[in-house]
């Protein structure tokens, strides 16, 4: 009996100590997209080194979950790869603001044994492959844009994301812009009704895993996964007709063009962007804040963090495979930050 009482006392003390310690720090919770998790965790860590009493805790639940948690006010900020729709904004209890933080690119990965040249893709060709209209690698449509390449007669196995994801959203957003048939038949969402005979992989890792193991497979993943897993990815033809391979430079170039027509709320799609060097399947990723947050203390801290992330934080991006924001966009955002009411 005595032993049990000792244990209970110790447990209570530990719990109380934990509560007391955390009372002196500012602890902020955020949730959302999985894509920016690595760069955000780098940022929060670096920021915590400079400001040890600021503990920002971010978990990747997915863009949609982040939006829902933000609307339910179980977290202070959200993060999303696809901007909130008008309906989602309407159903939130307060006005929500979008702030782009970094850029990412989605690349078409493929596995053709024996092929050592890089493949070129155009938007319509990609759409036709994923629609199931092109079924073999040596199809004339692919051969036409890859002259001189020895394409085998292997069947194409299409791999897509099993679960809803921002990556899918970016990819199908692009396909809908370049293929009217895609737009009509399939549409744009974080999860779509893929044609029969395709396979769903779980997560970017799942898709790259499946593609790397299935000869003749094609899939789409965030750039960093193709690089880290050393899978071949093709270049894609952009609006200006140039075949561009994804890299932090070409993705940033896609955003630079968008800066000129940036809407005030920063909700913009930059797929199929103009510019010779622009990679066509690029996208912003956003942090979401309430215009009038309830907790002013946390709001002050997050505003300072945001300013740091948009300026100092950008230098950490390329090493981790993210494209930094172009300067014009950062300037626009710094001007918009005061919209978050701190008073």
């Amino acid at each position, binding site marked *: 009996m005595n032993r049990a009482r000792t244990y209970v006392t110790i447990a209570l003390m530990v719990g109380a100590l934990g509560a007391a310690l*955390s009372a002196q720090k500012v602890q902020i919770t955020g949730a959302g997209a999985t894509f920016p998790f690595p760069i955000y965790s780098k940022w929060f860590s670096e920021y915590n080194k400079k400001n040890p009493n600021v503990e920002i805790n971010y978990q990747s639940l997915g863009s949609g979950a982040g939006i829902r948690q933000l609307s*339910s006010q179980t977290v202070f900020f959200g993060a999303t790869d696809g901007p909130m729709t008008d309906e989602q904004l309407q159903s939130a209890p307060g006005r929500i603001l979008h702030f782009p933080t970094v850029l990412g690119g989605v690349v078409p990965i493929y596995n053709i044994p024996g092929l050592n040249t890089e493949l070129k893709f155009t938007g319509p060709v990609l759409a036709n492959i994923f629609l199931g209209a092109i079924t073999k690698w040596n199809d004339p449509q692919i051969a036409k844009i890859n002259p001189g390449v020895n394409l085998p007669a292997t069947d194409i196995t299409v791999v897509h994301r099993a679960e809803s994801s921002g990556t899918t959203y970016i990819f199908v957003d692009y396909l809908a812009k370049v293929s009217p048939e895609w737009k009509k038949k399939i549409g744009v969402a974080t999860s779509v009704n893929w044609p029969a005979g395709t396979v769903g992989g779980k997560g970017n890792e799942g898709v790259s895993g499946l593609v790397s193991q299935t000869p003749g497979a094609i899939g789409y993943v965030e750039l960093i996964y193709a690089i880290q897993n050393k899978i071949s990815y093709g270049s894609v033809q952009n609006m200006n007709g140039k075949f561009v391979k994804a890299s932090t430079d070409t993705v940033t170039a896609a955003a630079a063009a968008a800066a000129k027509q940036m809407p005030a709320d920063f909700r913009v799609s930059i797929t199929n962007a103009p510019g010779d060097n622009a990679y066509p399947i690029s996208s912003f990723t956003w942090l979401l804040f309430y215009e009038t947050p309830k907790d002013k203390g946390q709001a002050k801290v997050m505003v300072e963090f945001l300013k740091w992330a948009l300026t100092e934080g950008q230098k950490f991006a390329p090493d981790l495979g993210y494209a930094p924001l172009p300067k014009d966009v950062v300037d626009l955002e710094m001007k918009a930050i005061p919209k978050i009411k701190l008073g």
Partner: protein
Amino acid sequence: MMRDRWRRGLSHAVLIFSGASVVLALIPLALILFYVITRGVGALNLDFFRNMPAPVGERGGGMANAIVGSLIVTGLGSLFAIPIGVIAGVYAAEYRGTRFSSATRFAADTLNGVPSIVIGVFAYGIAVLPFKHFSALAGGLALGIMMIPLIMRTTEELLLLVPNTLREGALALGATRARAVFTVVLPAALPGIVTGILLALARIAGETAPLIFTSFNNRYFSTNVTQPISTLTVQVFTYAITAYEDWHRQAWAGALVLVTIVSLCSVLARMATARMERLHRGA
């Protein structure tokens, strides 16, 4: 004579089959363990057990907070599930044949088939949403709900197999019903009940989905049960879906630590039960 040969032959065949099943089950186990160990042991160092998670590319990242967090959340879940599971099992066994006990059994079997994510969302609805924040307690609730059916059904099935003579003997000696069951019948079935509890623990130890929406995760060390807390499974999952080799290795190390902790618990619990049995028998 022929019949005898056939019967004996059949008996031998079954013995061989059951031995073969053991070997058959050991093959994937060995393969999986080999897989986890070879991938994870490389990232197991002192830092792993001492430090908090570090961003990609920085050395010395660890899962100290996740290890402690997992112990806390699993402990909370067990605190919730063991009393409910065992006592509900006692009711179902002792009052077998009544409609209420059938209903309880039915409810437990149904609950067992509910996917972990549904339970997570349920726990989210009652323990997170009303309070507007994630917490270790909510995670414990979700895990506890998942543990209950296994504990309850195992307790019930094993209590049913305790001979009635034991019950009657205790009652004949003047014990109250509660005393008879809890001091005589239950201890007789204890090793089996412990198996049920360990199975339930193993079941929830590897679960991610119910925790993501309840205990969330925490980059920092925390023992505050009313706040988000880090757990090994969520941390492993978070790392496993990224692209970085460094984080993958840590994820495997985390999985290895998890399997080791669960096995250790299993061994310790069995040892403790054996000791209790010996004391109980008066040896």
